[in-house]
C-alpha cells in the first residue's frame, strides 16, 4: 500500500510540471477485463480493501461504508456503476480515494496498473465512440510510442479515460 501511496504522492508533485509540458497523468486500473484511467490529480490515495459495513437501502452501486482514518467514507462499486458484470473481490482489489465536493468517496477497482503520462496526441476524444459513449468517458488514451510492448505490433494498450466529475455526479443529491 505504501508503495502505491508513494506513487501517487510523487506523481502529484510532478503534475504541474507535466501539464506545462502538454502532458497529463492518469492512473490506470482494471475493471473486469477493461482498462480504465482517472486523472491522477483527482486521486488522493490508494487503499487495500478495508472491512466494509453494508448500508441497507442505499443505491445498488454503493457497496457500503468504510473507515479511513476515522472518516466515514462511502465505497462505490465502479463495476456496478459502469454496468459491468459482477465479479468477486480478489487480493488485488483496491480502493481509489477521490474527492467529490465536500466528501471523499472510495471507488473500488479490481487492480491498479500504473501511472500513464499521455501527451495530447495520445488522447482521442470520446466522440470517436459516437453517441454510445457514456457521459463519464472523457476519451480514449493510447499510451503509444513510449510504451509499445517489446513484442512489436501486438495489441496496443487502450485506456478508457474517465471524467471523475461526471462519474461521481450522480451521487450528489440524486
Amino acid at each position: 500500500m505504501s508503495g502505491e501511496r508513494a506513487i501517487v504522492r510523487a506523481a502529484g508533485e510532478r503534475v504541474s510540471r507535466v501539464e506545462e509540458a502538454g502532458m497529463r497523468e492518469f492512473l490506470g486500473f482494471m475493471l473486469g477485463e477493461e482498462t480504465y484511467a482517472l486523472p491522477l490529480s483527482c486521486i488522493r490515495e490508494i487503499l487495500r480493501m478495508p472491512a466494509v459495513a453494508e448500508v441497507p437501502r442505499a443505491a445498488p452501486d454503493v457497496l457500503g461504508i468504510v473507515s479511513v482514518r476515522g472518516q466515514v467514507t462511502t465505497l462505490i462499486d465502479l463495476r456496478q456503476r459502469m454496468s459491468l458484470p459482477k465479479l468477486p473481490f480478489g487480493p488485488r482489489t483496491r480502493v481509489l480515494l477521490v474527492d467529490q465536493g465536500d466528501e471523499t468517496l472510495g471507488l473500488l477497482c479490481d487492480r491498479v496498473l500504473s501511472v500513464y503520462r499521455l501527451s495530447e496526441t495520445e488522447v482521442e476524444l470520446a466522440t470517436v465512440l459516437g453517441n454510445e459513449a457514456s457521459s463519464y468517458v472523457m476519451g480514449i488514451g493510447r499510451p503509444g510510442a513510449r510504451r509499445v510492448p517489446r513484442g512489436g505490433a501486438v495489441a496496443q494498450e487502450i485506456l478508457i479515460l474517465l471524467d471523475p466529475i461526471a462519474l461521481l455526479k450522480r451521487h450528489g443529491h440524486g
Partner: protein
Amino acid sequence: MGSSTQSDKAREEFLAEAQELVEGLSRDLLMLDEGERRGQRNPETLNDLFRGVHTLKGLSGMFGFERLGRLSHVLEDTLEDLRMGRLELSQPALDVLFEGVEGFQRLLADAARPEGTSTVDIDALASRVGGIARAEAAEHDVLRDYELEPNVLGVLTEYEEHRLRTNLEQGFSIYRLRIRLALDVIDTALDQLRERLKSISEIITYLPSMEGGSVDAIDIEMLLSTRATESDLRTALGRADGVLSLVQKRRGGADPSLTAQSLRPVTTGGQPIEATKAQLPERVAAEAGADMSLRSLTNVVRVDIRKLDYLMNVVGELGTVRAALGRLVEKMRVSADHALASEAHRLARVFGRHLAEVQEGVLDIRMVPLSQLFDKVAVIVRQVARDQHKEVRLLITGGETEVDKLIAEELADPMMHIVRNAIDHGVEVAEQRASLGKPAVATLAINAYQKGSHVVIELSDDGRGIDTDLVREAAIRKGLLSDQVVSDLSREELLNVVFMPGFSTASAVTDLSGRGVGMDVVKTNITRLGGAVDLESDVGVGTKITITLPITLAIMSALLFEVRGRVLAIPLAVVQEALRLPAAAVRTIEGREVLSLRGATLPLCRLGDFFRFSRRPIGAPESTAATEEHFVIVVAVGNRRLGLCVDRLAGQQDIVIKGLGRSLSQVQGISGATDLGDQRLVLVVDAAAIVEETLLGRTSHMLARGLS
C-alpha cells in the same frame, strides 16, 4: 466561570458575538478606507458594514444594551445614506465612522466591566456620527438642526456664529458648560478654565447666565466645540464644578423658535448629568481611553464547533482504547504476574476516570442554555403578533435547560416555523377571542425541561386548534391521500398529515384552522437530530407541539446487537428494555405483528426485513446459516413504542456517532455510523425513522412519494 448564572452566560455570549461583529466592522471599515485611498470604491464593503451594524443593532436591542443600540441606530442611518448615495463618502465621514466603531469597542469594554462605569459619551458620539449626514447636506443651515435656542444664537457675534457653524459642519460636538464661579476670583478662575479647555476644545463663547447664581457667585454658560468625548472634557475640567451637557440634535428638524421650552432641561436639568459625573472616576476614563483598543473584552473563547467535534472524535477513539485496555488487563489477571496485573488494572481505572472527565468537559463546552434560542423566538413572536394585529403573551419556562450547541442551532428553524404558525393560524384576533369567551390576549407557552438524556420542549397555544375534518378534506383535495386511506386514519394519524410536505405547502389550506407552512420542515429537521415531534390539538382549545430531542449528538451510550450477521447499534436513550422474544406471545393484528407485553400491545418490526438484509453478509462464509430473531429491543420515541426484533444482543458501549456522507443522505432508518475501534464501522439505526415508517407506514409512504 463555572458558577456563572444563566443570564451571565447569555450576556457573555452576546458580548462575544458583538465583539466579533465589531471586529468585522473594523475590518470592513479599513477596507473601505483603503479602497477610497486607491480610488476604488467597492459598494459591497459598504453593504457589509451596513449589514454588520444592522445585526449589532438587533442584538443590542434583544439583550437590552441600550447604548450600543443607540449608537448602532445612528450609524445604521448614516450608512444607509452613504449606501444610497444620499451622502458623499468623504474623509471626514470615514473619520466619524471609525470613531463610531471605536465607540462600539469602548461600549463593549464597559459592558464587560462589572458595574455600570462608562467611559463613553454615547450622545456626543451618536450626534457626531449622525452629524455627518447633516454636515454634508449643504443647502440648509446646520444651526437649525441643533437644540440651540434663539436667545443664545441671538447673542453670538458673527464670528462666533461662523465658528459654531463650521465646527458643526465638520462634525464637532457642541457642549454647553454651565459653571458657577465665585465673584471674587472670577477673572483667575475663568483664565484657568480657559487654559484647561483650550487643549481639547474650542470655546465658542461664554456668557453670564440669567438664571441661578447667588450673591457671591455667578453662573457662566459656555459653548464648547470639540472632537473629544464628554469624559475627556470632564477630565480636562478637573475639579471645576460644572454641569456639562451636549447640545442635542433637533428631532425632525422642527422650527427653532418652537423649541425654546425644550431647552429648559438642558440648563436646569443639571442634576442627572452631575450624577453621571459623580459615578465616573476621571482616572478610569483617561486610562480606558489610552489602551482599551488592544485589550480583549471577555474571557470567552469562541470555538468552531468542528474543532470540538474533532476533539470528541479523539475522545471516542480513546474510549475504544480504554475498552481494549480493559480486556487486556483482564487477560493479564488470569495469566501474568499478579502484582503487575493489579497495577495495570489500577492504571486502567485511573485512565478511564480521567477520560470520562475529559469527555464530560468537552460535552459541557458544547452545551448552551435554550434561553439563547428562546430569546430569538421571543423577538419573532413580537414581530409576527404585531404584523398580524394579534395580542400574544409569551410565557417561557425552562430556558436554563441546556442542549448541545449544534442542536440549539438546528432547532432555530423548526421553532420559528412553529411559533409563526401558531400565531398566524392558531391564534384568533382579539374580537373573535372575546366572542368565544377566551381572554383577548392569547397565550403562547414554551416550556423546556430535561428528561433523562433528552430535552423536551413544549410549545402550546390557546388558539383555535386543528380541525381534523378540515385536514381530511384538504388532504383529499390536494390529492395527498385517497378517500379510502383518509377514512381509515385515526385522529392521531390525521393530525400527522399536517407534517406531510404536499400538505403544508398547499396554498389552498392557509385558510385552514391550524398549522400551515413549513411543518414538514419542522418534522424533517427534528427527525434528523434523532428527535421526535408530537402534536396534540383540541378544536377551540388550542394546540400543543412537543419536541423531544437528545441532549447531545456527540457521544452516546448505545446498545449493540446483531441482525443476520451484521452488528448494528442503537442509542440507549431510546431503548426502554431488551428482552428475549417469547415467540408464542406474538400475534398479528391486520397483518402486523404485535407482542402482548405485560398486558400492553407492542407493535413489532423485524429489522432484518426492514433493512432488507440478505441472509448472508458480504464476505461471510456460506455456512453462516440464517439465525432467528431471539430478542426484542423495545424503543420509545415520543409517545410511540415499537419492538425491534433482532438476532442477538452484543453489549453496551459509548459511541461517537459520525454522519454518513452526502452520497448516502437519502438512506432512511440509519442515522450514522460508529467506529468500534477495530477499524470496522457499525451502523447506528435511527429509531425515530423506523418507528415512523413502521407505525405510520401509510402516511410516510405518501410522504416519500411526495418527496420524490
